[in-house]
């Protein structure tokens, strides 16, 4: 009996100790949480589901999320290696594999819903497609950065370099507008017709587009050959305005290689790689090789800039950005395909809070992370070019205190 009393007393003492301990720790956690916080993500290694028909993705060069939270990607079937296209040979050389059609639509669970794309009547499909944007009316916009002529069907092997696709002068001097079913609606610009950064009718390797729902204007990051942002009416394609770095008139004079110790370049380097308009009317532009974001008003007035990973050479650090889905769009997610990470930044100060990712081919790692987009639930989607050639989903796991500058690979773990 006495033994039972001792056991009971010990039991209750332990319970009380745990209760007191957890209360103290909770208070500490609350105090820590009032410090710097940032969205936390975990890779979903099961997303997307396997593609049907022995299809493979090539350089996956754009991602966008529509109003239904469907995920759209565009990739280059022509960038696959010879053996990856054996099924497309005539007769087939093996049971596997072949390039998937260029445009693919997935649902949130990673099921493939639809696919289309490629050359057709009435428009000029890019030699090397680049960037995809689904606008507020549900239309799908596509750019391109190919050089030379359209010589190869998408399923034929043609190892294209992401930065300098093909050879010769730029072919892809246009953006294309389609319905979600792949029906052609409009083309702005014509292949091989660009007269440079002040040509009002043609583009030159347009990398990415954004459509402003307030004004129905199309903003184009132009691009791989030009050094500007250019704005058109999204219904008629009529030219509105354009500008270069710091709001200057763009100039095509060669700037030479990027030097991190030199004063900031007064013009965009190639490629001008993204253009994203925030809810408050500020336009964010990726000046990729100059390792910087520049911010403008809608009329092209320069507001501010931020240098990201200044010492990054070669392909540069500022590849693509996406905003968080809160109404204030408090955070920017910046894909850096050279340093193989995604930075989480404050939009108002352009300060980097933390980053995640690392180089590699396993889930949560990156090889040339090229494009990034968010869905309405705050999840992130990334695509990878060069030999990365995939799309990944990073599940939003709520806000968390910032404890590390570089989080590394964000494997699934306990949600806090």
């Amino acid at each position, binding site marked *: 009996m006495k033994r039972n009393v001792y056991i009971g007393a010990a039991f209750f003492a332990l319970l009380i100790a*745990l209760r007191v301990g957890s209360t103290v720790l909770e208070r500490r956690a609350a105090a820590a949480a009032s410090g710097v916080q940032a969205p936390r993500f975990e890779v979903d290694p099961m997303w997307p589901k396997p593609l*049907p028909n022995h299809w493979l993705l090539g350089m996956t060069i754009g991602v966008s999320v529509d109003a239904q939270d469907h995920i759209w990607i565009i990739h280059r079937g022509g960038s696959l290696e010879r053996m990856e296209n054996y099924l497309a040979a005539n007769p087939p050389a093996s049971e596997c594999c072949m390039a998937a059609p260029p445009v693919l639509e997935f649902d949130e669970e990673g099921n493939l819903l639809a696919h289309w794309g490629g050359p*057709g009547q009435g428009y000029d499909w890019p030699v090397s497609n680049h960037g995809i944007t689904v606008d507020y*009316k549900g*239309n799908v916009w596509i750019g391109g950065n190919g050089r030379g002529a359209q010589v190869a069907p998408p399923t034929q092997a043609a190892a294209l370099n992401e930065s300098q696709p093909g050879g010769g002068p730029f072919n892809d001097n246009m953006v294309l507008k389609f319905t979600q079913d792949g*029906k052609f609606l409009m083309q702005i610009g014509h292949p091989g017709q660009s007269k440079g950064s002040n040509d009002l009718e043609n583009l030159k390797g347009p990398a990415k587009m954004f459509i402003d729902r307030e004004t129905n204007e199309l903003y184009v990051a132009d691009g791989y050959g030009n050094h500007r942002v250019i704005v058109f009416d999204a219904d008629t394609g009529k030219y509105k305005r354009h500008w270069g770095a710091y709001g200057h008139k763009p100039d095509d004079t060669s700037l030479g290689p990027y030097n991190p110790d030199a004063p900031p370049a007064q013009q965009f380097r190639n490629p001008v790689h993204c253009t994203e308009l925030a809810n408050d009317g500020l336009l964010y532009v990726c000046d990729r090789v100059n390792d910087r974001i520049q911010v403008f008003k809608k009329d092209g007035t320069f507001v501010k800039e931020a240098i990201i990973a200044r010492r990054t050479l070669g392909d540069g650090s500022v590849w693509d950005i996406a905003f968080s889905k809160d109404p204030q769009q408090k955070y920017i997610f910046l894909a850096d395909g050279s340093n193989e990470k995604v930075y989480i930044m404050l939009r108002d100060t352009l300060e980097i809070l933390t980053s995640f990712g690392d180089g590699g081919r396993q889930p949560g790692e990156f090889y040339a992370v090229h494009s990034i987009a968010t869905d309405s639930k705050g999840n992130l989607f990334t695509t990878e070019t060069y030999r990365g050639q995939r799309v990944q989903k990073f599940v939003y796991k709520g806000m968390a205190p910032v404890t590390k500058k570089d989080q590394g690979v964000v494997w699934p773990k306990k949600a806090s």
Partner: protein
Amino acid sequence: MVSPVFTSSSAVFRRTAPHLWTAAFLAALVLVLPQAAVAHDIPNDVTVQAFVKPAGEHLNLLLRVPLKAMRDTEFPERGPGYLDLARVDASLREAATVWIANAIEVYDDDSKLPNPQIVDVRASLESDKSFASYDEAFAHVTGPRLQNDAQVYWNQVMLDVLLEYPIRSDRSRFSIHPGLARLGLQVITALRFLPPDGAVRAFEFAGDPGLVRLDPRWHQAALRFVKLGFFHILDGTDHLLFLFCLVIPFRSLRKLIPVVTSFTVAHSITLIASAYNVAPDFLWFPPLIETLIAMSIVYMALENIVGGIGVQRRWMITFGFGLVHGFGFSFALRQTLQFAGSHLLSSLLSFNIGVELGQLLVLMLLIPLLHVFFRFAVAERTGTIILSALVAHTGWHWMIDRGERLRQFPFVWPALTAATLASAMHWLMGILILAGLVWCVAKYWPLKFPLGQPSPRRPLGTGTPQVHAVGHGLETETGGEI
């Protein structure tokens, strides 16, 4: 330009299987009926957003559906397929009548309400966010329309409809039968009910959910959940195999009472805890639980083969595994709790009652069958080993398969933060309380239930015990300790 997606994904098949008959029927209908002026494809996925708000003598039903789901209606177009917004109103009303108003039944208490009045219809952009709340949606549907010259492609817009039903009182208990499954191959309806007390009750269902009681009485919710629990256990092969393992050595309801009660109490604890969001939020948690359930089957089967199982030992182990199975039940229940109305706890308990009724039915069938099997087909000890080995084999394969899925999520120790430690302490407290309860029951059980004493020292497998009918069940001469 769009091609169908050819896929052999079993997940996709499972997801769409319940709708295959609907799809087949609709496809046949399209083939048999004379072609309408416009025959659009059946959309794969359709999401319907809806608000139900009774106010005074009217009930407003606000709906948003993709226009592409309104088949066989000709919408005036211009250019490459842009909706002619100046001339579209009549077509939108026709579509709203045929595909929405006529397909939905609303009940005031148990009286079906007459056909509604279509107050307003309009085409909206897919990216329009006004259906985030009832007030915004109402203002949108009764406010300015898209400008007539806007270029919107016809199948990339939404149809917004405001329906109005006459009602007796906004305090009535309303039910709705949304027959919207025919809008697509897979139709998800997200419905929010806004009763006059200011609460917002959210529902989400796939296909045709039948009659949905928006504010069920406790007994209506309870009945629904009893049925759900009953059929869930009958449909859950892994739970049934676990039960089968429990029965093989204890073929007596009396002997099984402490074991099954322990299982019930344990799975009720974790099921209720999950419903109140206490369960861990790991991506890998569901595969972990599924693997543990398979392991529980393997363990029980192996224990049957090894023998020497006492009631006392088995109810304690069953309690532990019951905690695991409770999480498994909670995954099945996750989507259904929305139908509990304001009776969450009673609905959970009802689900458990349903599970127990299902288990009881299985026991009533299994016990006599096993007795007959052991009496006429094979010696008891041999039969126990054979049956348990078969179950262990199945359980083993499940365990390997599910373990493989679990291995996709390598374990990473959580960072040692104050929040993590506090959470760990909460879990320790829970475990401690449970352990205390188990200790108390184990300590005092034999005083109240002497049948739970360990087996008489009879060697295992030495002959077949005689069987006598006792009470409602059957038991062996040795007290079931076989």
